[in-house]
């Protein structure tokens, strides 16, 4: 391919990175609005069904969010394979509601708690393309059409030799990605926990109830090293999002039909949530504000809001820097940084925030704003993050374990010796 063709393809792949990235805070916001183990539903007539739906909705939304992170990584691998440098830090939407990058005008989605209308927005994001729809590289209508455009560029303009950079991609066999975890699974019936445990097989009570919404065969992290693998990466992203174009149900996204597409998962939830009275949903949906901003919150909460945004932004920085490293430096930064950062720092901060009431008329609680935090200097970003954590007043209830974990996050500034420091 010519250099200008390469630059054009890289520009569209960077847009792909930003499209995938833009969905993550939106899905996570709604995810954190859900109490997956609600006791407040118990007294209600539909308490068991509501509790079961709460856990299922949480599991399904997280199962999609996990795959959006995968899709962003696959788009980054595609860029790296061509010698490009994906930009992630500072590229989250920042202000909400927002349209998706380069989507045609008229669509917007924001930070909103779980509701039927928010699930309708999710369906808009994951909307399957119509059969025969034309590829669109800009002002696109569906994500599928946008990726069709990229696919055409790869088919028509590249050869295997163009995909020659493997070293800095996030590869397989390093524990970077898993399809399921304890946050994506959910029980068939939330009240299973009330059944007695079998003393001869204590694991059976939960295991017999567990539903695993993702499946390995729908595709995972992969290194792009030629035209075929580049097209495979595009295919994983498209199918996991909207299923197969020739299947009018858009249900399955894998050859064995073990995993539902994002669109199908959200469509099921949108149908199910309508069965419940709107007021009853309050037994498990936290009173999150609509599109909150740092500027709109009372000042006493800002240290925690800033920390949440800084952690979120630092994780994006870790990801971006990981694509510039290789070998043990990359695995130390990405594996340790992202797993510890997402599961045991960001998750715990966001989970704790929602129990702080804003004391406003609507009875709302503190919720993440997912704004881009701009570190004063990237050279001291880790130190700034630690300082922010230590500046949170005790009155905001930040657990000391979380501060300790932030202190031992890997530093994104990897020295010339290639050693990741903490």
């Amino acid at each position: 391919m010519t250099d200008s063709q390469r630059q054009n393809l890289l520009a569209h792949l960077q847009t792909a990175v930003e499209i995938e990235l833009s969905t993550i805070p939106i899905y996570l916001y709604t995810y954190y609005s859900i109490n997956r183990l609600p006791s407040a539903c118990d007294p209600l007539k539909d308490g068991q069904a509501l509790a079961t739906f709460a856990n299922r909705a949480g599991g399904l939304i997280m199962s999609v969010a996990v795959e959006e992170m995968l899709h962003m990584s696959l788009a980054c691998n595609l860029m790296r394979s061509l010698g490009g440098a994906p930009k992630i830090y500072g590229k989250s939407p920042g202000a909400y509601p927002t349209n998706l990058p380069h989507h045609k005008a008229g669509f917007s989605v924001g930070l909103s708690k779980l509701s039927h209308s928010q699930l309708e927005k999710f369906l808009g994001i994951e909307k399957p393309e119509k059969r025969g729809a034309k590829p669109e590289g800009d002002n696109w209508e569906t994500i599928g059409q946008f990726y069709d455009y990229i696919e055409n560029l790869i088919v028509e303009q590249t050869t295997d030799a163009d995909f020659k950079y493997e070293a800095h991609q996030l590869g397989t066999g390093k524990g970077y990605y898993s399809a399921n975890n304890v946050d994506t699974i959910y029980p068939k019936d939330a009240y299973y926990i009330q059944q007695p445990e079998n003393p001869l097989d204590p694991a059976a009570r939960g295991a017999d109830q567990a539903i695993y919404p993702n499946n390995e065969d729908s595709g995972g992290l992969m290194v792009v090293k030629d035209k075929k693998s580049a097209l495979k990466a595009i295919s994983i992203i498209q199918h996991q999002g909207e299923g197969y174009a020739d299947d009018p149900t858009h249900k399955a996204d894998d050859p064995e039909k073990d995993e539902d597409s994002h669109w199908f998962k959200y469509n099921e939830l949108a149908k199910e949530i309508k069965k419940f009275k709107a007021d009853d949903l309050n037994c498990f949906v936290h009173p999150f504000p609509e599109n909150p901003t740092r500027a709109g919150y009372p000042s006493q909460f800002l240290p925690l809001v800033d920390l949440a945004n800084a952690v979120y932004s630092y994780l994006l920085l870790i990801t971006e820097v990981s694509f510039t490293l290789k070998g043990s430096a990359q695995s130390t930064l990405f594996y340790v940084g992202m797993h510890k950062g997402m599961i045991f720092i960001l998750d715990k901060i966001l989970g704790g925030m929602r129990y702080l009431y804003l004391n406003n008329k609507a009875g709302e609680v503190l919720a993440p704003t997912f704004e881009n935090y701009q570190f004063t200097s990237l050279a001291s970003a880790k130190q700034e993050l630690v300082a922010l954590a230590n500046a949170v007043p005790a009155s905001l209830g930040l657990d000391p374990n979380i501060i300790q974990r932030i202190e031992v996050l890997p530093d994104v500034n990897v020295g010339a010796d290639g050693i990741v420091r903490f």
Partner: protein
Amino acid sequence: MSSQNHIPLELHACMGLNACKGHDRLGTNECSGMGTCATAAEHSCHTLNNCRGQGGCGLYGNAEEQNRPGDNPCSWQGSCAVPINAERFSTDGPNQGKSVWQRARTIFEQKMNRSGRTFGPSPSPVGPPTAWLKKNYNPDYNACGASGMSGGGSCI
């Protein structure tokens, strides 16, 4: 139960996974494989372990990690909370939907057999239930995960 006066001789992830006599948290077990408690630093989840062999497994981590509970090769590569409660099942990999503790015990027995070492039965053939851990080990014991399906509640 207290571990204050005994310095662990070996770090392992749970009941029945000790390699030698005197290697459980109390230092009183009669034989390998018969220890009552983990000696590895208690931790609540994925990547929070400090040493080799301390990962509990089953809740987070990829298929390969989840298939090697108590057998992680390096610090921070453990795949979940220690001790391993008996209710916990693997969420990914070949052991998906099966007991994590029993998988850890199988790996332990394989290692001992490869080394030509004998070992005794675990104090419990299914591992320590959460209720037992709360009563005998730590009243605040928990594992992790928003689904609540770890069997050990959720962690901070």
